[in-house]
């Protein structure tokens, strides 16, 4: 069972606002799921290497150069100024 403080901490890391009620519900749901996942402790993993990728290809290289100069991507930005993405200021004045 994870506690409510942990759930709040993860919500912070996840960058999502939740109401107190939602956090409590998540605490219950996540605990249930994690209880199930604890099943993994039954597997003997001594001397087993992790698999992060199923197909072993390594070091695929290509030239690092732009193919097209596509300004259409900038049309998708919610807020922009000239050819820049506009964000709220990060540093306090």
């Amino acid at each position, binding site marked *: 069972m*994870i506690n409510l403080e*942990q*759930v709040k*901490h*993860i*919500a912070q*890391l*996840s*960058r*999502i*606002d*939740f109401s107190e009620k939602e956090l409590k519900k*998540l605490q219950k*749901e*996540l605990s*249930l*799921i*994690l209880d*199930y*996942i*604890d*099943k*993994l*402790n*039954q*597997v003997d*993993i001594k001397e*087993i*290497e*992790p*698999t*992060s*990728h*199923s*197909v072993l*290809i390594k070091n*695929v290289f*290509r030239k690092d150069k732009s193919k097209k100069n*596509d300004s*259409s*991507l900038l*049309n*998708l*930005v*919610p*807020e922009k100024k000239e050819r820049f*993405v506009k*964000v*709220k*200021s*990060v540093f306090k004045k």
Partner: protein
Amino acid sequence: MTLKEIITGIEKKKFSCQEISGRYLDTIDKKNKDINAFISVNRGEGDFPIAIKDNILVKGLKCTAGSRILENYIAPYNATVIDKLGAFVLGKTNLDEFACGSSGEFSAFGPTKNPNDLEYVAGGSSSGSAAAVAADMAPVALGSDTAGSVRLPASFCGVVGFKPTYGAVSRYGLIAMASSLDQIGILSQNIEDAEIVFDIIKGKDEMDSTTLEVEESDKVCLKDLVFGLPKECFSQGIDKKVLEITNKAVKELEKQGARIEEINMPDLGYGVACYYIIMPAELSANLARYDGVRYGSSEKAEDLFSVYFKTREKYFGKEIKRRIMLGTYALSFGYYEAYYLRALKVRTKIKQDFDNAFEKIDFVLTPTAPVLPFKIGQKIEDPLSLYMMDLLTVPANLAGLPGISLPVGSIGNLPVGAQIIGPALKDKKLLKTAKMLEQIWTQ
């Protein structure tokens, strides 16, 4: 009409692509209100008509990924598969938000209904693609499969669903869910059509460095093949009716000369637990880009942090939030080794199970889904029971193997599918084999 018949008809000038696509668009107009298989409908041109899951980019068309956060996002370029196909895109099909779901109920644009019975789920997450093919709203469709998202809805809707080897088809232009597992797949009326589409879209792509070439295959003969039935997939947790139908289908194969062997794959049952660490971990990282700043929906707020928090609160659905939370937890300080690293090691064990099996047998055969299609809303409040739906399909994703679901029978009007899984890169041999099974099972 099958895709093969359409392509031949267009070649012989019996009809034009425009005419045939018009017929499908009429059917969509008639049926989509009830089935909700399409999020948007298109009127374009191309060599043959196809439906595309709404997480694959088609230039100039909306691509929502089933999420409010991309509700007004218009794709600025084509996915590689779209360029390769050169097809008439009939429309973009419904899906669980960001392909996260196994029932088709977690779309921000409403659930897809099962064309065989509108009260039932279509299976997910490629719910709309499967339903479109089943309801004759498209001859063939593309989907994506991260844990069974092509094969499960195929099984529930009564069509063919093919997930190729990881890397066999370029994912450039597929909206990422869990990158070490995602694979574009095909939903079709029969194996022949799946192979036609696969031959067009497969192969290396400079834009996706995980892409590979699959092996060609000689003719296969049923009498030379050994099918392995993992005990773990024919026991507890699988619906009795599903088992009954699958066992009957296996008997048919045996009668036609195939060899059947019971095998042990002791770690297969840990697939779901393993997946529900690896996938949320990768998903939470992939979805970090939806921050209200770069593209997609955005909430105004007084400072940058509040833009992130408010945007993600308002536009992500419940299931997505749950999975982001789970993944963030698994990757957070102090839990990485207990959860994530352990899951990656269990993944190795599951892969070894397959490696060992393929030394003795040619293909693994299992039911596709552990249960029959269920009613819409029946399991929505119980995430874990929905997660268990992936039990028989997720091992192929964890090991990167090709798998096909094909119709094998039905209970009343609810279809049941069987799955065969082959060794990596043997996609062509798998398709050839599936074609023989299809003949036997549809007789």
